[in-house]
């Protein structure tokens, strides 16, 4: 049982998340993909903590989870308010902030 399988899994999850962010239009799906990327990183951190025999990586993972929770609260609120004003959850419709 090697640790590298965990790293491969984390890489696959991160790639799925990144591609999802780039190709999907629905804001909720994009948001879930971001979460996926964060959690793949968490997995990597825990894996390396285990490999090195220290707890640094695990503590870092907790920090990421706290930040992710806060981000979910703010992000979902923004998505809700955009949906209420535009009757749409597509990220391409929210394109007013430009040149």
């Amino acid at each position, binding site marked *: 049982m090697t640790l590298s399988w965990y790293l491969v899994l984390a890489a696959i999850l991160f790639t799925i998340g*990144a591609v999802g*962010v*780039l*190709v999907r*239009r629905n804001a909720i799906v*994009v948001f879930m993909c971001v979460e996926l990327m964060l959690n793949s990183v968490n997995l990597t951190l825990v894996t390396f903590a285990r490999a090195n025999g220290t707890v640094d990586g695990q503590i870092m993972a907790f920090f990421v989870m706290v930040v992710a929770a806060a981000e979910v609260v703010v992000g979902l609120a923004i998505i809700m308010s955009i949906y209420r004003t535009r009757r749409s959850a597509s*990220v*391409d419709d*929210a*394109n*007013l*902030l*430009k*040149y």
Partner: protein
Amino acid sequence: MLTYSWLLIALPLAGAAVLLLGGRRTDRWGHLLGTATVVVAFVIGLVCTISLAGLDKKSVNVDLFTFIHAGSLDIPAGLLYDPLSAVFVLLITGVGSLIHIYSIGYMAHDPGRRRFFAYLNLFIAAMLLLVLGNNYVALYVGWEGVGLASYLLIAFWYTRPAAATAAKKAFIMNRVGDVGLALAIFLMFSQLGTTSFQGVFAGVGALAGGTVTAMGLLLLLGACGKSGQFPLQAWLPDAMEGPTPVSALIHAATMVTAGVYLIARSAPIYDLTQTARTVVMCIGALTLLIGAIAGCAFDDIKKVLAYSTVSQIGYMFLAVGLGPIGYVAGLAHLLAHGFFKAGLFLGAGSVMHAMNDQVDMRRFGGLWKKLPVTFWTFALGYVALIGLIPFSGYWTKDAIINATFDRGDWLGDALGIAAVLGAGLTAFYMTRLMIMTFFSRPRWEEGVHPHESPAVMTVPMVVLAVGSVAAGYLLVEAFPLADWMAPDFGARHEATHVIAPLTFGIGITVVALLGVGLAWLFVGRREVPATAPVRVSFVTRAARNALYADQVNESLFMRPGQWLTRALVFFDNRGVDGAVNGLAATLGGSSSRLGRTQTGFVRTYALGMLGGAVLVAGALLAVTAG
């Protein structure tokens, strides 16, 4: 009393200030105030001069206040009252008073009379500062002040384009000379650390010969600009666009002789440099011929007198260039010239007054019966100028010519012959002027009814005429200027003349009579055409163009200057502005193009972030692996 000599300058200056600041409220009595300040200044000048004569040491220094004090530069404002400045003070305030009185009548119908008197007062104040200052900086302040007053008065009728242009021409050509004077003062300060007359004259002996010569030549450049000498003579005849009293006071009697004053005052500098002195002489002789030749051809009465002034100042330059044997002769001629030329100009003004401001002598003629006072005063000025015995010119101008021959070398002989030729030409053009104006058949324009001027104008003319008759004899024989000037120029110089005075007197009179005779032959014997003949010899044409001085100035200085300005304007528009505007346009254009990349689509930004992260990760890997 001499400690109050600052009043001489302060009074006319206060008059100018009251008239200029008081505005229209002073219109009714402004001319009287302007005249009164100058007359009072004349009285003060007389008292000062009399008390100066009573002193043992004939040089009084009056320190007033510190003008500039900065580091090692210390320039006090002080006055120097000595025999040289005393005669100038009397000339300026004396002739100035007469001309102020004359102007009351001459400018009676001019709406700007108050302004005219304000400028005249300003001129008197500046001119007195010029001759009274005890250092070169004070002299320079006065020098620029008279330049300003001259500019304002030439352009007095500023709505006339000719007057405005003439004023600019005078101002600009004067600037050329002033640069020379300023450089000379800088040179004094850098070499000697002082600009006071006393300090400069005490220290100049220790300087290298080349430095002293440069100083002399730069001072000469300044003198040439102010006095209308070659090569800066072209502005003076154009300056006749101003009112006639201005021509009489500024451009004949006083301001234009400031150059002679400058050279006479700087005598200790010129004593050390024979080169500069020779240049002064040559310029004087050349200018006296140029002025006399041009004077023969012009039909404008004031321009003839103006060229005559140029020519007579040439005589004065020749005299002061001669050194100790010439200073007193030159200054005597300056004083006598101040009288008779001011008188002649006032006479010309009176003629113009009678002829509806006509200046073309071809439209005059036969005026001696209509304007008797003007004619007789003018005739006295005429005999004084051409130097007939025993009038002023004989005593002063001919003394200069004789002193030139006294040099005894080839240069003296050559310049002397030029001066004799100039004397003949002087007699010619003045006789031509007399014949065309006062004799010959009347060629008046329709509706002109000549009438004699009022007493307020004729009285100053009579006084000046008496002065012009007497000045020469008084200055040379009765109260010799040479003795009065001894503290400035050393004891009286008893010259042993190369040519015996009697022979010389007869010779010069013959030359003058020859000029008169030729003028009668060419002008008086025939009818004077009412319009100038067109088909004339090339000599006449050259003289009518004042020996092409304007053309030379235009092609040598004005045109290249214009080309240079045009090239600079082109370079400024295309080069400097082009670079700045081009840079701004490039930045603006590229920023608006770069702005297009901000599309507002979240996924585009996300791709950018991912690309960036991959790049950073790749770079990190490359570094760790490498």
